[in-house]
């Protein structure tokens, strides 16, 4: 076990805020912040009712950001996401009505329930940072952070995200069920008031943007870059893997590592960051062969294998 590192004080405040609402999910909170600071997006793969919405709302409220929620359904249209231009008879022209995507923090709930057309509208917005409605490109607000969820259990009437689109999420997280003690704690917390109402912003959006800028300045040594590439390369030559991690994966891992190092108050990335983040940053970018799946292997197992097989750089 690596030694526990202190968090950056401002980040610690955010995490503490989230912890007031969500019990025992510090790790998920930190990882969400990693994605937020690295200007990436998160795919939460979880069963309903474990607190995904609360997490995002707490995060949004902590940084005093605009929170939007899109509930994806099969009949949702792209324009329901991006917004539409409606003719204003008084002004005698089309007027743009922003969609729910025009927020700082967007919860895209059950993203795999909607049609690929709608999905790609969202994903394009995530990637490009702007939306095009009726030929007009409109920038999305800054910061822009999407937390998409999907239910790993139900596949009936869903449109699983294609690999190319999964690749666009920086991290894939899972909250999982709370432990019995934690669950008791949840019950007693919500007994009288909803804690989400109780928390206050601890950071402004401008401060967050500044932090995002600082993250990019975190130093990644050559040996670390080589280490990232070594790990990623192993996914491409692994016998159980059908499709390995793309260079975008390497990039994601590095960006996340920068944010993670920053969160911990370091101005440089260490191999521990890489090892910690690799399962979250890489496992959704790997497609296993069906034999491997039948053997009970998961993408996380493969990532763990990759890490174990890669020697850590201990010299410059």
């Amino acid at each position, binding site marked *: 076990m690596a030694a526990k590192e202190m968090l950056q004080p401002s980040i610690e405040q955010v995490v503490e805020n989230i912890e007031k609402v969500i019990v025992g999910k510090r790790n998920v909170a930190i990882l969400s912040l990693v994605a937020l600071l690295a200007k990436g997006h998160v795919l939460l793969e979880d069963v309903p009712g474990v607190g995904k919405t609360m997490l995002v709302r707490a995060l949004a409220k902590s940084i005093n950001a605009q929170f939007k929620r899109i509930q994806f359904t099969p009949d949702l249209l792209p324009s329901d996401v991006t917004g539409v231009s409606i003719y204003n008879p008084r002004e005698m022209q089309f007027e743009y009505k922003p969609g729910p995507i025009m927020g700082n923090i967007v919860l895209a709930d059950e993203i795999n329930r909607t049609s690929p057309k709608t999905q790609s509208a969202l994903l394009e917005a995530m990637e490009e940072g702007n939306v095009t409605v009726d030929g007009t490109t409109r920038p999305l607000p800054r910061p822009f952070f999407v937390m998409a969820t999907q239910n790993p259990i139900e596949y009936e009437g869903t449109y699983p995200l294609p690999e190319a689109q999964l690749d666009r999420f920086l991290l894939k997280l899972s909250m999982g069920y709370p432990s019995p003690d934690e669950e008791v704690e949840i019950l007693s917390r919500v007994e009288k008031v909803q804690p989400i109402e109780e928390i206050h912003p601890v950071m402004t959006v401008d401060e967050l943007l500044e932090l995002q800028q600082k993250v990019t300045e975190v130093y990644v040594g050559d040996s670390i870059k080589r280490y990232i590439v070594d790990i990623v390369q192993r996914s491409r030559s692994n016998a159980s893997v059908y499709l390995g991690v793309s260079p975008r994966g390497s990039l994601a891992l590095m960006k996340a590592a920068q944010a993670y190092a920053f969160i911990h108050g370091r101005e440089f990335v260490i191999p521990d960051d890489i090892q910690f983040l690799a399962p979250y940053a890489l496992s959704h970018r790997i497609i296993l062969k069906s034999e491997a799946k039948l053997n009970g292997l998961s993408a996380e197992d493969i990532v763990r294998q990759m890490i*174990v097989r890669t020697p850590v750089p201990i*010299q410059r």
Partner: protein
Amino acid sequence: MKTMRYIAIKMLIYGLACWLLIEWLMPLETISDTEGVEVFIGFVVLCFLLYFFRPPFWLSVFVKSIYILWALNQWFYHASLFTAPTRIWQETSDHAAILFTTRLMELSNSLRSFLFFGLLWLVAYVSYRWMVVRKRLFFFYVLTVIYVTVLDTFTLFRGNGAIVRLVAFGFFFLSLLHIERLREQSPAIGGIRRWWGACLSFVGLAVLVGYFSPKLPPQWPDPVSFVKSYAAAPEEKQIDPAALKVKKVGYGQNDSRLGGPFIADDTVVFTAEDERRHYWRVETKDIYTGKGWTSFQSEQMRTLENDMDIDYSWWSPALKKKQITASIHMKKTYFHLVYPLGLKKVKAQEDVVYRMETATEKIYTTDRSVYTLPLTSYDLVYEYPTFSIDALKAAPPVGDKELLERYTQLPENLPKRVRDLAKQITNGKQTQYEQVKAVEQYFHANGYTYETTDVAVPGKKDDYVDQFLFETKRGYCDNFSTSMVVMLRSLGIPARWVKGYTSGRLMEEKDGKNIYEITNNDAHSWVEVYFSGIGWVPFEPTQGFVNPYVFTASSPDSETAPLPEQRTPEQSRVPLERVREQSPSLPSQDSGILDRFLAAWSWKRIAIALAAFFAFVWTAYKTRRKWWPYVTILRFQYKRKRGDNLFAAAYLSLLRHLDDYGLKRKPHQTLRQYAAYVDDWFKTKEMTRLTMLYEKSIYLPKNNPIDWDEVRELWENLIKKTVS
């Protein structure tokens, strides 16, 4: 795979336990009149085989019983196997009474063998329980070593091979059982492969070094005579302190303390088929200590090949000689030859190498390696000399300084009256021969008597020769010959003391050859005197003995020719190394020592020593690396250049030391994880602190100043921890 290894180790343990027991049986044939030891060995092997395969109890008893009955039947009864039990029962009941008395010698051979089988059965079971089941060996092993060494010292049994085997297999076995015991306690124990490596290399190294390193001659006098005399002491102490030592007549090796009575012993030593009577030499001694004789300390050996002419000049070529062959049949086991003066060739059936100790002219019989090899019979070719009295008289005084120095050695505290007596005896004698003759004859008159029982041992302040010449005047060959040598030496005549046997008793004549029987009673000592231009000439001062060599009055024609002085026989015999060693051109003592060292250490030995040394260093490096950290600390203590590179080097060496210490870092472990592991082990936080500093130095761009002093303190603390 695993079970295969398990079975292999099990077999190894059973085999080694069996071997150790057999090691006890091996000497029996030599030290007792036991015959057919291999049958007993077979029984032990059978016992261990049965323990290994664990048949039902009744079956193993049955098999062993059949084996015993078969063996006894083969040896004694020669009847049907089924009658054997009744025979044994009969004998047991007949001899039952004996078993409970002290007359054990009266037991019949068959019953004794039967009882021995029983004993072996018991011992095999006990050693099986002890070594294989309990996995304890040390006590038994020490007993075995003592057993072998005692037998080697006090009996004819040669334990050379046994000792080597005991070291090689014994140590291996000890350590194998140790690791097996450990494994029993904690089955998950690791590092077995490394244990094998370490164990085998250490045992191999010990055996190699032991085998190839030069062996010193015994540093103590042979303990046997000492122990015997000590054991004999209580009865005789009150009677006569002089009779402390009772010797058995016969050939012994240790002459450093002469004197004391003899007990006659007519055991036949060998028979010789020969034409002439002459003395049989064994060795010469040339350092008189005042109490007895010791030999010139030298390791010089000359190797003589079987059935090849011996290039050793006994006399000057001018001497009249006759070539004669003789054959020897040994009745007792000796590892040296008995040979006549003038030996030219030895021939034996065995593949034997003769090694002559140049200091004593004793010739050992060995095999191709260094093991001694007793010969039962061999043929000799030798030159029988005829000494011309005229030539001897004409011989000039010996001029060879080196020879003179060596063979006129006398102790400093030799009483003056011995010298005076020698002068008195030889008063008026001109030539060396006449002087020698006068001394030899002196003993025949003047009241000297041959005596074997009432012979004094010189006291602490007495000189052996002085005591005999002036006080006791009674003694045997040793007294006479030693006295003569000492007196001659006091006159400056080179003389030496020779041991061996007289020509023995003539048993029969067979086609021109006489057959002599030589017993222990024929053991003898006499004198050899060096005459320049002739060589060593034997003389016989002992009362009642006659010099067997022929001295003729008329001079042979060739004899008068002067001999080339530059090649006197003795000179040609001096080994090259000694010439070098004593040559005056080497001024300092150091170079002499170096030369002697080089002479003693041949290139082969040096190569082996170097190999052993490097092997030792390598093993030490591999196993004793825990001392290395101090070296590392010193290495970094005085480094002037400070900076990232130094820190990196120091940190990496710390990692290596931690690895040696046993805290292994897996390649995928990050430094931080490893540091936490190390800190957890040492109960500190230093490794984490140091690692965080190191992380800065390697994962950040350069030009990162590092507080070397802080780093060094942490680093030294950690590295010191790896020492303990």
